[in-house]
C-alpha cells in the first residue's frame, strides 16, 4: 500500500524513466516482516573496538537467530551489496581518537550493505561516563549514526543502542532489541538511539511468538494503527482484548473475530474503564501482560482560537484516560490487573516533540504521554514493569489521508526513506516493546518516523 508517487517512480515505466532523467527521489520499497522470514537479507558483519564489551554476545544473538556472522575489521573485504547488516560494538570507546577505529572498521561494511540492510551501533550512555571526553566520545556515536542513516539508500536504516555499563556482564537484555533493529520489523525505525538497562529477562520458549499464552489489551483498536497493533500482537501469540468506543463496535467486532480476540466496547474516559478492562482480562487469564494506550483523538484548532471543550476532550482521551486506567490496573491485588513484569505502552507522536500548527491541544497530550513514561518508569521498576511510548511520524492512515496534498507530500518525503510509514510499522515497534525480552527498555520514547526531519 505504498503511496501513488512511490508506485509511479518505482513501478510505472514512464515514472521510472522520468525519475531517472530528472533525478527525482525514488522511495525504496521497504522489506516488512512475514512469519518465517530470515532475520536479515544477508550476512551480518560484526566489529568491535578493543574486543568490545558485548561483541561475543552480539555474535551469539545473531547466530542463534539463524543469520551468518562475518568478522568486521578495517582490512576485511566484502562483496558489493552483499551484507544484511553492519553491527559495531562501540561500548569500549573512551577517547575522541577511538572514533577513527570505528570509522575505519564500519565504513567498508556500510559500503557493502544490500537492500533493506541495517546499521546498528552499540554504545554506552554518555551520562554514565566519569570523564568528559568519554561522554563526548559516546555522544558522538549518535551523530555518526544519524548521519550514516541519512546516507543509506534502498531501504537501509541505522540505529543506536546505548547499553548501561551494569548490563555488560548480563547482555541477554540486548537480544530482543538487537533482533528488532536488525529485522524487517523495524522497517520504518531509523536514526533512533535506544537506552537499554540492566534487567531480569524472562526465558521465552519461542522468540518468534514471545507473547504466547499472555493477555494483551489494545485501545482504539477498531481501525487503522490500533487494528494493526492487535493483529501483530495476535501473531506474537497473545490473546488480545480490543477496546474501542461503542459507536465503533461494528469494525471492532470484525477486528476481534479476525484475530480470535475479544471485543470490548468501552469509552475509555468512563470512570470505571480500568475496572471493565480488568474484568475482561480476568475472563481470559489471570493477569494482564501488556496494555497499549493507542486510542486518541484530534480536535485541531489554532491555540488562540481553541476552547475549553475541545481542549478538554483531547486531553481527556489522549492522556487522562491513560493515567486513570494505569492507576487501576497497577493495583497488584486486582484480578485482571497488570502483572509483575508487565508492559505499558503509550502512543505519543512526533507532533508532541516538534509541535504542529493548530495542534497545541494534541501536542500537549502527546508530549504529556512522553513525560508520563519517563517519570513513571523508575516507580514501576521494582515490579519489573516497563513503560514506554512510541512516537509515530507520518503514517499512512485514514487520518493522514485527509491532510491537504502539499502538506501531505512534504510529510511523506521529508524523511530518510522518502515515504510515509505503514500502520504495521508502528505496530511492530509496539510489539517489540511489549516482548518479555524488552525488559531492559523502559522510560523511553521510540520514534517510528523513517528518520524524519520533523520533530528531530
Amino acid at each position: 500500500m505504498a503511496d501513488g508517487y512511490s508506485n509511479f517512480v518505482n513501478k510505472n515505466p514512464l515514472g521510472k524513466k522520468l525519475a531517472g532523467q530528472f533525478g527525482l527521489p525514488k522511495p525504496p520499497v521497504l522489506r516488512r516482516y512475514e512469519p518465517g522470514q530470515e532475520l536479515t537479507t544477508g550476512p551480518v558483519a560484526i566489529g568491535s573496538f578493543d574486543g568490545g564489551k558485548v561483541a561475543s554476545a552480539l555474535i551469539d544473538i545473531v547466530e542463534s537467530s539463524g543469520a551468518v556472522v562475518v568478522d568486521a575489521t578495517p582490512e576485511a573485504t566484502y562483496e558489493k551489496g552483499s551484507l544484511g547488516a553492519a553491527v559495531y560494538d562501540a561500548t569500549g570507546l573512551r577517547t575522541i581518537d577511538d572514533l577513527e577505529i570505528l570509522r575505519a572498521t564500519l565504513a567498508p561494511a556500510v559500503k557493502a550493505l544490500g537492500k533493506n540492510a541495517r546499521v546498528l551501533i552499540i554504545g554506552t550512555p554518555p551520562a554514565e561516563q566519569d570523564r568528559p571526553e568519554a561522554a563526548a566520545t559516546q555522544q558522538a556515536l549518535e551523530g555518526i549514526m544519524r548521519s550514516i542513516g541519512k546516507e543509506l539508500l534502498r531501504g537501509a536504516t541505522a540505529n543506536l543502542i546505548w547499553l548501561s555499563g551494569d548490563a555488560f556482564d548480563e547482555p541477554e537484555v540486548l537480544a530482543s532489541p538487537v533482533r528488532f533493529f536488525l529485522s524487517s520489523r523495524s522497517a520504518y525505525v531509523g536514526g533512533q538511539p535506544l537506552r537499554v538497562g540492566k534487567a531480569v529477562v524472562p526465558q521465552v520458549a519461542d522468540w518468534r511468538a514471545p507473547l504466547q499464552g499472555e493477555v494483551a489489551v489494545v485501545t482504539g483498536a477498531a481501525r487503522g494503527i490500533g487494528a494493526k497493533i492487535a493483529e501483530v500482537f495476535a501473531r506474537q501469540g497473545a490473546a488480545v482484548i480490543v477496546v474501542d468506543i461503542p459507536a465503533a463496535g461494528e469494525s471492532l467486532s470484525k477486528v476481534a473475530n479476525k484475530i480470535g480476540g475479544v471485543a470490548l466496547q468501552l469509552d475509555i474516559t468512563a470512570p470505571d474503564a480500568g475496572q471493565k478492562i480488568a474484568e475482561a482480562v480476568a475472563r481470559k487469564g489471570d493477569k494482564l501482560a501488556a496494555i497499549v494506550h493507542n486510542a486518541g483523538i484530534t480536535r485541531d484548532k489554532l491555540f488562540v482560537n481553541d476552547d475549553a471543550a475541545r481542549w478538554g476532550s483531547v486531553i481527556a482521551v489522549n492522556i487522562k484516560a491513560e493515567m486513570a486506567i494505569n492507576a487501576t490496573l497497577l493495583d497488584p491485588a486486582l484480578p485482571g490487573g497488570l502483572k509483575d513484569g508487565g508492559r505499558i505502552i503509550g502512543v505519543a507522536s512526533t507532533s508532541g516533540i516538534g509541535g504542529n500548527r493548530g495542534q497545541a491541544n494534541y501536542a500537549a497530550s502527546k508530549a504529556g504521554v512522553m513525560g508520563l513514561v519517563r517519570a513513571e518508569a523508575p516507580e514501576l521498576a521494582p515490579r519489573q514493569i516497563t513503560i514506554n511510548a512510541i512516537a509515530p511520524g507520518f503514517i499512512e492512515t485514514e487520518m493522514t489521508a485527509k491532510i491537504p496534498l502539499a502538506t501531505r507530500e512534504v510529510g511523506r518525503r521529508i524523511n530518510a526513506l522518502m515515504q510515509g510509514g505503514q500502520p504495521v510499522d508502528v505496530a511492530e515497534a509496539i510489539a517489540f516493546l511489549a516482548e518479555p525480552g524488552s525488559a531492559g527498555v523502559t522510560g523511553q520514547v521510540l520514534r517510528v518516523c523513517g528518520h524524519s526531519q520533523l520533530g528531530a
Partner: protein
Amino acid sequence: MSPRDVYVLGGNRIPFVRSGGKYLKASNQDMLTAAIDGLVSRHDLSGERLGEVAAGAVIKHARDFNLTRESVLGSHLSPQTPAYDVQQACGTGLEATILVANKIALGQVDSAIAGGTDTTSDAPLAINDDLRRTLMMVNYAKTPQQRLKALTKIRPGQFAPEQPKNAEPRTGLAMGDHQAITTKEWGISREAQDELAALSHQNLAAAYGRGFFDDLVTPYLGVSKDNNLRPDSTPEKLAKLKPVFGKGEGATMTAGNSTPLTDGASVVLLGSADWAQERKLTPLARFVDGETAAVDYVHGGEGLLMAPPYAIARLLQRNGLTLQDFEFYEFHEAFASTVLCHLAAMESPEFCKERLGLDEPLGSVDRSKLNVNGSSLAAGHPFAATGGRIVASLAKMLHEKGSGRGLISICAAGGQGVVAILEAV
C-alpha cells in the same frame, strides 16, 4: 439425566432500524450473521463449536429455507455448530430461547445461542398465484405442444405481484385492527397509551445515556442506536397524532403508541454452569421456566393478542409464584394498549375467574418495575428479534440488581403468547 440449571451468559443485537431505512439492503441472513458475530467477538467464541443455534424469522424468502444454519456458516463460529429455524411469529426469539434452555437443562447440549431476525424492508414479493400456477404447468408439461398451450394462459394481469399483507389470514384484519377491538373492549384510554409510549422512549434514552447497551448492542451498517427512539417524546406530543387503527370517534391507536415496522436481529448466549465456568463467562441470570399459550381469536372467544395473561397464569402456578414476586416486568409493547389490556385483564376478577379459572385475580403490577429500560415502542420491533433483545436486557438488569426475578411476556400473531421467568444469580 435430571434437569440442571441454565444461565443467560450474554447477548448481542444490532440496533433496530425503521423499515425502509439504513438496512434496506440487508437480508435476514446478513443481520442474523452480524448479530452472531458481535456475540462471538464479545464472548471470545471465534472458532468455537457450540451445542446449537436456534433462531428464526417471521417473514422469510423461499431461499432462506435454512436461514439459521446459513448464518452460522457465515459467522465466526465453528462450522461444526448445528442450527435450526424456529417460527412462532413475534414469539420466535423467546420460543427459541426456551427450546435451547430446555436442551441445556436436559444435558443434551452445554451451550447454545438463541435469537431471531426480521426485516420488512427486504420482505419477499411473491408472484401472482395465477401466474405461479401457470408457470408450474409449463414446468411440468411433457410435450412442446402442452408447454405452448400452458403458456398461452398467461395474461398481463398476472404480472402484478402479490402484495405482502400484515393481516391475520383467518380474519383478514390487520393486527392493529384486531387490537383496536380489544382496546375498546377493555376501555383503554388514549391518554394511558400515550403515557406508556412516552415513558418507553424516555426510559430507552436514559438506558443508552448510562451506557446500558454498551455490551448488548453492536453497531451495524453505520447505525449505533435504535433509530425509532425519540428521546424527547412526551404524552403531549403524542396526543397530537391521528389514530391509524380502529374506526370513528373511539379510535385511540396512533403511529406513536403503536410499534412501527422495524428491521433488526438479536441473539443470546446460554449455557450450563460448568460451561460458563470453563470459559470464565459470568452468568447474568438463571433461566427458570417458560410457557406458551394460545387463544381462539377466530371465533371471537378472545382478542388476538390476549394470550399472554393465560400463559402467565399457568407459569406462575407451576412455579408457585404470584404476579407480585418480580423485580422487573418486561412486557413487549406491540401496541401500548396491548400491555394495558394485559394489565387490566390480570387485575380483573371476572377475567381471572371466568377465562383463567382462578379464584383470585392475578392482581396489579408495580408500574415502576415495568419496562424500565424502554421496550418495543421506543426500540422498535423486528418480530423475531424482540425475544433476544428482551432476554439479554432483562438478564443484565437482574445481574446489575443482584437479586430478584424478572417476568417476560410477548404476544404473537395467531393468538399466541410466549412468557418466561429469569432469576438473578
